[in-house]
């Protein structure tokens, strides 16, 4: 019997550091690097390729409530640290106008290596995501769940969209980040891996060929984590508002529980080709919640909002069982009033295209619900 997964939660976020005067991105991490190492401060902040980017992760949380507390602590910590250094934190998947060409690279050997290998593509990777880990201890089930859950990733991406701008232009997309990242190999929706052995073979081949040192270099939208017993969801733009980030984490958790129950009833959600799911992913990047996505069961386009509501209904029982209804509430608000991308676009429209006003709006929304 497949043991019930622990459904523990861990959330990693990547933040932008901006100058409150110019509103442009500002190098930050270098202040914490000494002698080629990041100086330890009270909480771990991980450097990223770009010096104006920081990554932080919550500890393992047993419940969504705990995850919210930890995320509040984490965002409050970085916001206070930023304030001390007279900069500000923004949670959005792209900066509205700062250009990737102008951004200094973190002076640590591994990033200089990445730059050498990926060249211009690495520098373009000035994008910010949220990764949600859900604890699944049984590896066989983790791979099974990964295959099936691919189908729902575009729907959740649509909810998280927060990158409508790129280098000072309105891109016409809601999640430009998810397109930029696809320049990288081993990214996007995974191909079908029928079993854990299939997945291990694939990783093994890449390792034996010397392409990757380990599975941490598989950058798919969902992947079994190479060290932790978790399924890691990487498809989302970072959410500007903390309550929206938590709502999405709660959906992932309930989804996994739902899949586990289906599995025990000898049912699986249908597994579709990557090419088909990519089509929905594209629609999510392009239109966010405003478009339609394909329901492949019906082979019909259905408004994305309706599909998201259907998804919530589908996992309604699990949400109730986990007691996370309250945390998922903000989704209803997003369905009615839009995502971070939509709100940014509204600020842009109402200020006659003032991207600095968009940054100010982002700084304010990022602070919501924090302990400062």
């Amino acid at each position, binding site marked *: 019997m497949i043991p019930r997964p622990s459904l523990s939660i861990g959330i990693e976020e990547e933040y932008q550091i901006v100058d409150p005067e110019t509103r442009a991105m500002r190098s930050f991490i270098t202040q914490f690097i000494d002698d080629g190492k990041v100086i330890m401060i009270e909480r771990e902040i991980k450097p990223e390729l770009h010096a104006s980017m920081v990554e932080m992760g919550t500890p393992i949380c047993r419940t969504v409530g705990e995850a919210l507390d930890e995320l509040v602590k984490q965002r409050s910590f970085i916001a206070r640290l930023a304030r001390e250094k007279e900069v500000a934190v923004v949670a959005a998947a792209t900066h509205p106008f700062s250009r990737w060409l102008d951004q200094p690279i973190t002076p640590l050997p591994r990033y200089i290596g990445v730059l050498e290998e990926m060249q*211009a593509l690495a520098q373009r990777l000035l994008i910010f995501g949220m990764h949600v880990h859900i604890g699944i201890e049984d590896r066989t089930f983790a791979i099974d769940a990964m295959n099936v859950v691919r189908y729902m990733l575009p729907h959740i991406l649509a909810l998280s969209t927060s990158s409508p701008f790129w280098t000072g232009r309105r891109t016409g997309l809601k999640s430009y980040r998810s397109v930029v990242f696809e*320049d990288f190999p081993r990214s996007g929706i995974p191909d079908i891996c029928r079993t854990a052995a299939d997945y291990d073979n694939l990783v093994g*081949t*890449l390792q034996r*060929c*010397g392409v990757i040192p380990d599975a941490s270099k598989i950058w798919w939208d969902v992947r079994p984590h190479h060290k932790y017993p978790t399924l890691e969801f990487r498809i989302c733009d970072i959410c500007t508002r903390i309550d929206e980030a938590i709502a999405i984490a709660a959906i992932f958790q309930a989804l996994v529980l739902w899949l586990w129950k289906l599995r025990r009833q000898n049912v699986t959600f249908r597994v579709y080709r990557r090419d088909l799911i990519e*089509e929905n992913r594209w629609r999510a990047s392009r239109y966010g919640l405003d478009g339609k996505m394909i329901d492949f069961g019906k*082979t019909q386009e259905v408004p994305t909002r309706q599909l998201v509501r259907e998804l919530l209904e589908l996992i309604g029982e699990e949400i109730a069982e986990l007691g996370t209804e309250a945390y998922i509430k903000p989704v209803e608000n997003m369905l009615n009033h839009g995502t971070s991308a939509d709100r940014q676009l509204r600020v842009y429209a109402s200020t006659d295209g003032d991207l600095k006003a968009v940054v100010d709006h982002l700084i304010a929304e990022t602070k919501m619900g924090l302990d400062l």
Partner: protein
Amino acid sequence: MYHPSFNIGIEEEYQVIDPQSRELLGYVTQSMANEQMVVRERNPDAELAQRFSDAVINAGTPVCVDIKDAREKLLRMRHDVLTLVQANDFKVAAAGTHPFSHWENRPTILPGYRAVLDDAQMIARRILCFGLRVHIGVEDRELAVDVMNTMRYVLPHILCLATSSPFWVGRNTGLKSYRNVLLDSLPRTGIPGFFNSYQEYRAYVDTLIRTNSMPDASQVRYDIIPHYRFPTLVVRICDMLPDLRDTLAITALIQATVAWMVDLRQRNQQFRIYERLLIAENKWRAVRYGLSGTLLDFGIEQALPTPTLIRELLERVQPFARKLNSEDELAHAETILQRGSSADQQLHIWHTNGQAMQPVVDFLVAETEKIG
């Protein structure tokens, strides 16, 4: 028993260059569908628009029985384009990207991409790049899909010989085929997944049409696909090449490889099918390093110098080139290996001219004009 014709069709796109500024003014594109070549202007303010307003070159039937025939037609086509453009005091260059012209300044949109633009927004605006498309006659559609599946493996090898886009908007991208990165941001691009049958492929395409994901089957742009109208297999991974002999060598290589795959099939053998992800890994290496890197040989699970693997491929298709009367054209591949691809040549010119872009354009023009 299958008897494909192995007919050849070559589609090219040429850049129209301002002889003073060396800027890209427009381009000449060809379509097998209407047997015509059409001049498109880049900037409606330029005089180009008036001068070329009804400049359509009748390219004649694109179907060539063999490489000798293809050579004749290609020579004539390039000659006609040169004559037309030179008569208007402009220059012609054939390459995957223009070294420095900015896409941002481009007010008009590639007509073939108009539908894409509405859908793909900023990404489509990024795509000002030029590809070589090689059609090989494989009349049986089931066989075409079979060859598509197996031949995916050698597409990166072929691309290494056919890279010509190291520069983009005035920068050295560090890559050999930046055009492929630009294109792969669009949906339905890159190395295709595996299809069990033509029926499965059609079902995929039909699903996308039925769900309004694309207006018609012409919007599937994978690196290799059965053409939606003609009884051909189309390889579209290659950059446009300035040197006509390169184009013919690549065409001969593609044709002989198709023949090799068909031959294996007729003897109840099959080139091994590898996961898309693994082939994409090699494609990335081809895009990044061209001929100067390594590719992975998944049979022996080792990275080997790219020229070694290409020579191995050339050896294996050699018997088929003999049958197809294309040995002379194919032999030029060895010259490319020793000389470097067009991208290598461009980088050499750039380095030896103090990293100036204009000499690169001059070089491309000179190479393209050498058709005597």
